[in-house]
């Protein structure tokens, strides 16, 4: 994952003609905090965990990025993901820098009480590092709105009422309306922008979506609302296809009841590994990383790929898509809807004024539309891929902020 971010960063930096020293300067995280978290486990034993918070670049504003609870969390991993957040916030013009962090634990083997104690202890160790104007965490792998609520209350216990210290909070506790559907809705706006330029409307295109979690399900719903024909869907263990278009409200109902796509009556089951090879207009990976590789990229028939998931394309596959003229909207742009509404949540918390859902959706639309246009125009004028263009826009903005504030 992190070698990919670094590869795409360096490729864009070379196109821009940036020297090796400056590249290193921009790639290196500015601050790395590592803490020991010691808590009493339910068994009475003491458990020791290591927590990290990496702030990659603060030139454009307070740092923003997720907190994940996973055994693979470490310094290098967090640093690479923090850099990715710097580029993502810059490409959609949010006044934030990038951060990432987490705790090297396996929450599937911990009780909710243990996870809460670990979270609160983590906050007591890093409360001087995070803050509404310095570094604002958000949910990530194995963390959720409840985790954010614990962080907010623990931080507020030390510093006084401060809901803006984290985003992705429950709507009942200073969270923002529209946060849950934000990534899927943002992808829908991106798809509309692509189609506006390549011809036609959403209503006369076919779509296949890999992954039917938070992102995939909201995306399918919004595409269907606009008349789009979603012909194939997959989740962790099943896939369904209907060439006439899947009835999305019915499938959402089915998944709410059965927690799986399998057994949905108005579509045929098929091999979920085959989804990425379907002959559709738009293919959306919305689940895992490393979906497209050197081995399979030349077998993909779709002419447009929207990266709703993080890092679904390996650098080798990216070169193949580029040569074949497949239009790939990169993850740092396509799935930025989540962090944009996180930003809106932060703004609402800071000004203590709650916005209506329509206002949030309208603003999200404008952010996605404007960012897409900037990247698209640059890609066209310089004859480069959307991914390289997105990285150039991001590096340009971070670079300018850096030199203007004085290196």
């Amino acid at each position: 994952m992190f070698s990919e971010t670094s590869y795409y960063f360096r490729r864009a930096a070379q196109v821009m003609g940036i020297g090796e020293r400056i590249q290193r300067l921009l790639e290196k995280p500015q601050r790395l905090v590592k803490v020991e978290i010691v808590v009493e486990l339910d068994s009475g034993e003491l458990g020791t965990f290591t927590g990290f918070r990496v702030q990659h670049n603060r030139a454009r504003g307070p740092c923003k990025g997720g907190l994940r609870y996973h055994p693979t969390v470490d310094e290098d991993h967090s640093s690479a993901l923090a850099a990715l957040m710097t580029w993502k916030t810059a490409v959609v013009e949010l006044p934030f820098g990038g951060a990432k962090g987490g705790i090297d634990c396996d929450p599937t083997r911990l009780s909710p009480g243990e996870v809460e104690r670990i979270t609160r202890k983590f906050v007591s160790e890093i409360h001087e590092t995070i803050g509404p104007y310095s570094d604002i965490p958000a949910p990530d792998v194995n963390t959720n709105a409840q985790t954010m609520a614990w962080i907010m209350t623990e931080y507020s216990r030390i510093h006084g009422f401060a809901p803006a210290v984290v985003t992705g909070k429950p709507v009942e506790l200073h969270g923002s309306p529209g946060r849950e559907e934000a990534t899927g809705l943002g992808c829908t706006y991106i798809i509309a922008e692509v189609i506006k330029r390549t011809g036609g409307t959403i209503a006369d295109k076919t779509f296949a979506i890999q992954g039917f979690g938070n992102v995939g399900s909201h995306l399918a719903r919004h595409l269907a609302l606009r008349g789009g024909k979603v012909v194939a869907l997959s989740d962790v263990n099943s896939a369904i296809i209907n060439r006439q278009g899947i009835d999305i409200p019915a499938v959402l109902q089915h998944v709410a009841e059965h927690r799986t796509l399998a057994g949905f009556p108005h579509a045929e089951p098929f091999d979920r590994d085959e989804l990425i090879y379907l002959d559709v207009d738009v293919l959306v990976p919305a689940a895992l990383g490393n979906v497209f590789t050197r081995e399979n990229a030349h077998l993909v028939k779709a002419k447009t790929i929207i990266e709703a998931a993080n890092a679904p394309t390996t650098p080798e596959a990216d070169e193949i898509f580029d040569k074949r003229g497949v239009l790939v909207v990169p993850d740092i742009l396509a799935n930025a809807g989540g962090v944009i509404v996180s930003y809106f949540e932060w703004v609402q918390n800071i000004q203590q004024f709650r916005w209506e859902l329509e206002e949030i959706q309208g603003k999200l639309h404008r952010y996605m539309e404007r960012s897409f246009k900037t990247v698209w125009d640059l890609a066209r004028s310089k004859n480069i891929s959307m991914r390289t263009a997105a990285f150039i826009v991001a590096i340009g903005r971070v670079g300018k902020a850096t030199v203007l504030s004085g290196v």
Partner: protein
Amino acid sequence: MEFDRKELRKTERFHQIPIFSNLTGQETGRILRITQELTVPAHREIFKPGDPCDGFYIILDGRVDIRIPSPGHTTTIATLSNRSVFGEMSFLGKRPRSAWATALEETRLNKIDGEAFQAMLDKGDIAAYKVIHNFAKLIAGRLRRVEDELLRVLDSVSPERRATKLAELQEFRQTLFRDWSF
């Protein structure tokens, strides 16, 4: 039964140590067999430069100071805490110890026996090779940090390099505002 549970907990704790994190349960078992747990009182020296190398250590609980000789005195190069590994440099390089390792507080350690570990390598035991691979990753990270530090030091001591750096920054600034407006 109680014994089994204890063993299981030991294996789980072992898994949280980065250099053992990707070992399977059985592989961990084989490493545990050549591992000895020891407790070192505060301020006790664990080894000193010139001592023969008889294995490497993992800190279970406590802190260890690593110092190297420098002209006229000694310099602390690292203060290590839980789950850190030390003593691996002389083990991998097949040389006597080159540093002092001292417990800063009462410290519990796991010691991996050098000869027994070498025997596992000679037999082609995948567990030992996974550990060696993890060492390689650890050392690559360390090397990268040393390179960054070296560049920084070189830039700060040489006027010529400093000038190049400033020129590069100046050019970066011009490129950004001239060629990349969006």
